[in-house]
Each structure stands twice: as structure tokens, then as C-alpha cells.
């Protein structure tokens, strides 16, 4: 059998396939449908310091080749996450790795969540979601280089656990953001989060989503995700987790060849909860067919044309 495992952040991932934040709840909800202990792991729904009520409906809708969501980061908040959700993860997941997705409106918010969980059991590390607007100045940490650097530097000082920063796709220079995170001490990067989008109900002349705009995910964003993962991975030497539109082994392999060490599956779970296991099996079949011994040999193993022409 081909070796799907990867050693990263000081531990082994038995498979490169993780479930993406916000699409697998806190694990428990999918426990009957997905053999969680057979996959690489999962990333929890975002956890914020205070509980968040979330946005009014509609919160999800289909878009061409994908979907749009504006959940509004509804979550139970740090305290209830720690007392009600983390114990299940701690008791039930041993072979699957858990990252906790963290959001906040300020560096202190983020810091409080990270510090508040750091001493607990049941998870490997943090995935920092920087797509949330900073209340102080309105921009997002993910699109403000200085704010991002300060945030990662601070969080680094608060935990020795793996710290993965999840990058926003709507910047022209993701490589610069990737380097900033690496320099500030991040252990890894996740690329990408959703694209801002909007759907309009033309009959009623109003936005479909209660929140007006939302984030686009699913197959529609696959080529953007592969590109941004390639750019980010080329810019840093820490591992990158590829995300966006994955629904098959080939899709996952595109990310891996582009430089991703792990991948996350989000929207595809809603369409078919069997997707993660299927993707794993497809990757294994590929390794066997191509005589590749270990998955790590494929990470970034893309051949580029010799004289790369100018872009545009």
C-alpha cells in the first residue's frame, strides 16, 4: 500500500485529507457519516471569544459550480466550546488531527481564545482565520500586512502549538502575505478562504443572502485556489494546506503538486459526505499507478516549462 502519511508540525498525519473549517461543525455532527478516525483530521468551525449570533437567513445558496455562504461565524464562543465541544473531540479523535479555527476582531480577542485553549487536550493546534474585519479600523487582518504581522507575532508568543494562518484570496500578492506569516513565526499556512460574492433575487430585487454578501466556495474556485497555493508555497518554506473546490483525488493532487502538504475539503462534504474517503482512496490509487512510494514525494513536484513567458 502506498504511504499517504505526512509528518508535519512534529506529528504524523495519516492522510493529507482534512475537513475544512465551517463545513464539519465540531466533528460530532458528521461522526455517523464520515469515518473521522480514518482521515487526516478536521478543522473546527471558527471559535471566537464571545458567542456570535450569526447572520439572518438566507445564509447559503447555490451559485454556478459552487455555493455562497454568510453564516456570520455563528459559534458558541470560547467558554462553551471548551466545556461542550472540545471534550467530544478529545474523547473521540485520536488518529485524526484537530485544528481549532480561531477568529477575533482584535489581537486581544484572538489572543484570549488561543490562551484560553492552549492548556486543553484534544487538539493539535490553531488555524487563524484572518478574514474577519478588525473592529478598530474596519479592514481585515488578512488584507493588512502590518496588522497581520502583529497578530501572528503576538499569537506566536502565546502558544507553542502549531500555528497555521488561513490566507484570504482577494489580495494581489498572496506571496507577500505568506512571507509575513512565516517571518512572524507561523508554522504553516492554509490557502484559501472564500471569495467575496453576492447573489441577487431579480424577481424581488433584493439580495438572496440576509447578509447581502457572502463567501463563494466549491469547484468554481478550484483554479484560483491552486494558483494561490502555488504562489504561497513558492514564497515560504513552511507547509501549506491547500483548500478550495476539492471534490476528487485529482483536484487534491493539483494542490499537492502545486506545493500543498495537506488539503482540506469543504463544500464537497455537503454534496457527498463520502468525499473525503473517496479522495483519499483516489490519491492512493494514483500513487500506486504511478509507482510513487510516499505522498511527500509529490508535494510541489510540478514541472514548469523552461522559459516561462511573461504573464498577462
Amino acid at each position: 500500500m502506498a504511504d499517504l502519511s505526512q509528518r508535519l508540525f512534529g506529528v504524523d498525519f495519516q492522510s493529507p485529507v482534512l475537513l475544512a473549517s465551517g463545513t464539519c461543525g465540531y466533528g460530532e455532527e458528521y461522526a455517523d457519516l464520515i469515518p473521522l478516525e480514518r482521515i487526516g483530521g478536521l478543522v473546527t468551525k471558527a471559535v471566537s471569544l464571545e458567542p456570535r449570533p450569526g447572520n439572518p437567513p438566507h445564509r447559503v445558496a447555490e451559485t454556478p459550480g459552487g455555493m455562497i455562504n454568510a453564516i456570520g461565524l455563528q459559534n458558541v464562543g470560547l467558554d462553551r466550546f471548551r466545556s461542550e465541544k472540545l471534550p467530544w473531540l478529545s474523547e473521540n479523535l485520536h488518529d485524526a488531527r484537530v485544528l481549532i479555527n480561531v477568529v477575533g476582531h482584535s489581537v486581544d480577542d484572538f489572543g484570549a481564545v488561543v490562551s484560553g485553549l492552549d492548556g486543553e487536550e484534544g487538539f493539535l493546534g490553531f488555524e487563524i482565520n484572518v478574514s474577519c474585519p478588525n473592529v478598530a479600523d474596519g479592514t481585515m487582518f488578512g488584507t493588512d500586512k502590518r496588522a497581520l504581522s502583529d497578530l501572528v507575532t503576538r499569537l506566536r508568543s502565546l502558544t507553542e502549538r502549531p500555528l497555521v494562518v488561513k490566507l484570504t484570496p482577494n489580495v494581489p500578492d498572496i506571496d507577500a502575505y505568506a512571507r509575513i506569516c512565516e517571518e512572524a513565526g507561523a508554522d504553516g499556512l492554509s490557502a484559501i478562504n472564500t471569495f467575496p460574492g453576492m447573489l441577487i433575487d431579480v424577481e424581488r430585487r433584493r439580495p438572496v443572502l440576509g447578509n447581502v454578501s457572502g463567501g463563494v466556495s466549491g469547484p468554481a474556485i478550484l483554479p484560483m485556489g491552486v494558483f494561490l497555493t502555488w504562489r504561497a508555497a513558492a514564497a515560504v518554506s513552511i507547509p501549506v494546506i491547500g483548500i478550495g473546490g476539492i471534490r476528487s483525488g485529482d483536484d487534491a493532487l493539483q494542490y499537492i503538486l502545486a506545493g500543498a502538504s495537506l488539503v482540506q475539503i469543504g463544500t464537497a462534504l455537503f454534496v457527498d459526505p463520502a468525499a473525503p474517503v473517496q479522495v483519499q482512496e483516489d490519491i492512493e490509487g494514483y500513487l500506486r499507478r504511478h509507482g510513487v512510494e510516499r505522498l511527500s514525494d509529490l508535494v510541489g513536484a510540478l514541472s514548469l516549462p523552461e522559459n516561462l513567458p511573461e504573464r498577462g
Partner: protein
Amino acid sequence: MRAPARSWARVLGNRVVARDTRWIELECPDVAAAASPGQFVMMGTGLSDVAAPFLPRPFSIGARDGDGRLGFLVREFGAGTRRLTRVEPGDELLILGPLGRPFHLSPDRAVLCLAGGVGLAPFLFVSAEARHEGCEVRIVYGERSGDRVFDLGLVREIAGVDPELRTDDGSLGARGLVIDDLDLGDRPQLLACGPDPMLRACVRLATEHDLPLQVSVEEHMGCGVGTCQGCVVLSATGEWIKSCTEGPVFDATELTWQT
């Protein structure tokens, strides 16, 4: 309740039962065995292509039998249901279910189902099961116009009762809304499923007559199993709660009703 299963279900039949409306039968033994009236499934076409419906769509279980068959009343609404209503016997659909909380019937009261449009679907199943257990069931069923009225022979066959029919334009059955001129003499328990304005009218009716009311609500869904938080409705205490796992059937008093 049993855990939901994911399975490919073979289409056994698909017939037109009203304008834009089909009765679709699937072979889906796991779901059929586990389902209770009021539950739903997520129905989709899988990951192999991205045509709508890419995300699966929720449908109430309209009937099940002992041979592992499920029946659904599917009305064409947008691009996703357009494709679903075109399936043919032998095609396969990806089914996740049974999902959600079913209706809870008190054995000591008659059941009055208030159905607007395809809101009729869960009540076919409710009626079949409740009558089987000796409950008395009535269905009041409203549509905008006669051409949208679902084949009444089939309703009788599945539900075991003749619905009391209302149409907005009076083109078939009595003219009027589902809640008009209702006989509530036996102080029945009310179950309602249909468009939002109808549900609100049912809430007013139940409050006025002090009758218990359960409603089945419709909200856009992502996962159907409680992970995405996409399907929320406003609880009586002002929180957004998931209609896929805490509903789709709610006691009317559990929700906030905007008027």
C-alpha cells in the same frame, strides 16, 4: 432516531401529478426503514458534475413502504428542481436521510393537517402512519389554482383520506385559503406545512383557538445534518437555531413569528 445514512437510490418511477409537479419514487431501503413522518432527505446528483443541483436539496418524505420504497412530491421551482423532476427510472440520486425531527402526535386528539402547495408532502406520510395507528386524520389542502392540485386519486391511495380542497381562485374545490371556514369542533392538534404567510396565519389561528400547532419550516440548507449553520430560523428566545436538526418540525411556540 436512527443515524442518517448516505446512499445512492435508484429511481423507480417519476410521474406528472400536477403542473410542474412530480411524484418520484426511489428505492432506498435504509431511509425507508428508519423514517418517521415529518422527516426529510437531502436529494442530489453527487459530485461528478457541477450542474444545478450541485448542493443537494431538501425534500420531505411523502411516503414509504415496507419494500424499501420512498415517495416524494417534487415541484419545479428553480434550476435544481428542474433537473430533479427530469430523472428517469433507472437513474440514481444521492440521498442523505432520514433527517430532522418528525411530527409528534398526541394519541388523544384528532389530527388536522394544514397543507399549502407541496407542503402536502409530509402529510401524506403523516396520514398513512397515523391512520395505521388508529388516529383520525383530516387534511385541508390549498393551492393557488386547480391545475396545480396534486392527483387526488394518488393522495387518497397514499394518505388514505380525501383532502378538503381549497384554491385561491376557486377553480377546484372551495374558493379560499387553507385556514378559511375550518371546522375545529373536535379541538384537533394542528400540523402545518406551506409558504410562510400561510404558516403565520396558522399560528394566529392556533393562538386564537388555543390549539397545539406544529409547523414544518423551509429554509435554504447546505449540509442538512447540522454542520454548516446555513438553515437557521429565529427561536422564541431570539436565537438563530438550525432547522435541519432542531426542525424542520417545530412546535409553533418554539419560534419567533414576525407579523
